[in-house]
């Protein structure tokens, strides 16, 4: 092996940085309808091409094409559209509330609203989702009360989580929404355990978990998939590949080397790569995986290929590290616009109704924010301080009892 050039360290770099032209538009993607749909009971060995395809249903004209067209009633489609719009309006307003000092923190899911909306509608009331902070459309689609949500964001006296948790790190058991935490990735395996418990009990509930593409690098991801594979856990494990992890592009998580869906092959489970901005594609893939899970065929990994159109959080300015026009250059468009266009194509929707709905939702959010403001915003109102000492254990021990006394609350 003489005469080889010296080794050199490869550091991945995104296609463009601020001031340059984004390369996202140039990415080669399969056409709508192109990627095949195997039977839900097919064996994994016959599906190893899927992670390198891309399940797309809506074409550029908003027409549903190909083998993955789900059968969804116009009413449900409209509910999906409404949920996505509500999510975006809510996000925008609460983001502004942060700028006004009403909360300590906020995160938007702009551009990714199809994911939680479609998946929460496909799954049943008894199923459980193990969310990330970027799938709040799950809650909006299921009708979680807006005012409660704002109360949580404002950490006020009526905060359902009693001021103990950072804004938007909700927990909503009744809505099939597991407790969030600031640590990324560490709940991915809980979904697998939860699904195993359901199978253990001979129940029919399945679990769905989310992880960001950046976070797939954590050991938790691998451990969850290993357990899901070994025990055939009835669950759907989703990677929301929105191309960015704070300032790091997906290549820093290995995205330049292969697809995230391809990680399924390491565990002998199906891996679907799905246009995450296509409500119908997300719906269809989720339905497929859910049917498989409910048939005791175990887990599916779904890569939801999407784009984080906004900054990472209120602490972030994405123009510092990526071209400012990159969100617009995203080749798979805006999930709201695309579903709207589809409904219009179906003659189940029109611009007027859309505008009216937007107004209505805006009003709903306004009212909710007003109600929560009446209770109080960050620092102006908070739950009783005694709540700080509750819930460490089921029953308080002497330490918190003494300390509560010491603090006089």
């Amino acid at each position, binding site marked *: 092996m003489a005469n080889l050039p010296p080794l050199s360290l490869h550091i991945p770099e995104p296609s463009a940085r601020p001031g340059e032209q984004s390369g996202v538009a140039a990415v080669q993607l399969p056409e709508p309808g192109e990627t095949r749909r195997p039977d839900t009971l097919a064996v994994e060995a016959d599906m190893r091409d899927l992670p390198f395809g891309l399940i797309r249903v809506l074409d550029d004209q908003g027409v549903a094409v190909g083998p993955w067209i789900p059968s969804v009633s116009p009413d449900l489609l409209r509910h999906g559209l409404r949920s996505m719009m509500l999510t975006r309006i809510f996000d925008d307003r609460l983001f502004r509330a942060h700028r006004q000092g009403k909360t300590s923190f906020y995160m938007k899911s702009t551009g990714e609203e199809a994911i939680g909306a479609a998946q929460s509608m496909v799954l049943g009331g008894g199923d459980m989702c193990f969310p990330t902070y970027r799938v709040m459309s799950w809650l909006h689609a299921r009708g979680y009360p807006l005012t409660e949500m704002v109360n949580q964001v404002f950490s006020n006296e009526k905060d359902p989580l009693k001021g103990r948790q950072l804004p938007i790190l909700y927990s909503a058991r009744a809505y099939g929404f597991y407790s969030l935490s600031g640590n990324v990735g560490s709940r991915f*395996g809980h979904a*697998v355990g939860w699904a195993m418990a359901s199978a253990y009990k001979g129940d029919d509930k399945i679990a769905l978990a989310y992880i960001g593409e950046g976070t797939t690098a954590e050991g938790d991801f691998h451990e969850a998939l290993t357990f899901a594979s*070994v025990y055939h856990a009835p669950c759907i494990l989703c990677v929301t590949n929105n191309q960015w992890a704070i300032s790091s592009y997906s290549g820093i998580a290995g995205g330049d080397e292969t697809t995230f869906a391809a990680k399924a092959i390491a565990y002998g489970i199906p891996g679907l790569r799905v246009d995450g901005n296509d409500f119908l594609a997300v719906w269809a893939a989720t339905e497929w995986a859910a049917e498989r899970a409910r048939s005791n065929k175990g887990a599916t990994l779904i890569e939801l290929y999407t784009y984080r159109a906004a900054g990472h959080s209120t602490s972030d300015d994405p123009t510092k590290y990526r071209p400012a026009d990159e969100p617009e250059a995203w080749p798979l468009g805006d999930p709201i616009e695309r579903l709207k266009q589809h409904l219009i194509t179906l003659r189940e929707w029109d611009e007027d109704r859309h505008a009216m709905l937007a107004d209505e939702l805006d009003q709903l959010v306004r009212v909710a924010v007003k109600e929560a403001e009446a209770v109080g915003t960050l620092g102006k109102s908070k739950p009783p301080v005694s709540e700080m000492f509750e819930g460490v254990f089921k029953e308080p021990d002497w330490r918190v009892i003494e300390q509560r006394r010491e603090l006089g609350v």
Partner: protein
Amino acid sequence: MPTMNMIRALNSALDVKLGQDPDTLIFGQDVGYFGGVFRVTDGLQKKHGLKRCFDAPISEGGIIATAIGMGAFGLRPIAEIQFADYILPALDQLVSEAARLRYRSNGEFWAPITVRSPYGGGIFGGQTHSQSPEAIFAHITGLKTVIPSNPYDAKGLLLAAIEDDDPVIVLEPKRLYNGPFDGRHDQTLETWAGVPEAEVPEGHYTVPLGKAAVVREGRQATVLAYGTMVHVAKAGIEESGVDAELLDLRSIVPLDIETIVASVTKTGRCVILHEASRFGGFGGELSALVQERCFWALKSPVQRVAGWDTPYPHAFEWDYFPGPGRLAAALRRAMED
């Protein structure tokens, strides 16, 4: 009542619980068909079925994450980590998830999991089969940690841990599995036969978490210990000639502060004994608590006898291990002051 060694007592606790509660199940590395590298789950798969006691991948983080998910569903999983040294890959799961789930979700979810793990030295296990990580757990709000010192307590505490609705770590002193051990490593091995605490009922009973046992009453000094060190303490007290009271803490969280304070208030002297290395060990917390609450009663400094501030060194096991001689010396020092 049958005599059981600690392995059998723990096995009996698991057997009783699997029999009583279909929502309990056991998993961990090698715990299924084989019955565990220390045999604690021996026969349980055969008796209760494949799904009640099964092998897990070599992934401590995955084991605890899975257990938490099961707990959130409504089960009461019992996970084994093969050696306490190997809990570290799962520490984030224990701290950031198990310990915090109830608090952060305002009680919507919780993790009623039990994590059993053999810990401690005395078996020539070298650096990574001998460590005592209890101080780390003690510092984590939301975790309970239990450390039995004899078969009766082992069964009763394990049953209490399983039935507890909070995450509980049960550290099993592996050196005590087959017999008591007082640190006199050059003497013939003892078994649990004939030891009163090895008389263990077949059926269900619990030993409550958070209650220390007064193993020996005494007037001149108080010795605080847990796990293997309870036996070392007995021998060390004898060797010292000091009339010391010996408390077996049994659980470090919740901690039986009342019994500790009452004893030191009475005796005025205190020596703390643990296997873990001294600096930053749980002895520091105990020393601070005693000093804060019994300051005016103290006749001499609270002392700590513990492992040295080195990794656990294979060939120097008995130079490292805090034996009865070191405790006796500390007790005598306490009396001199």
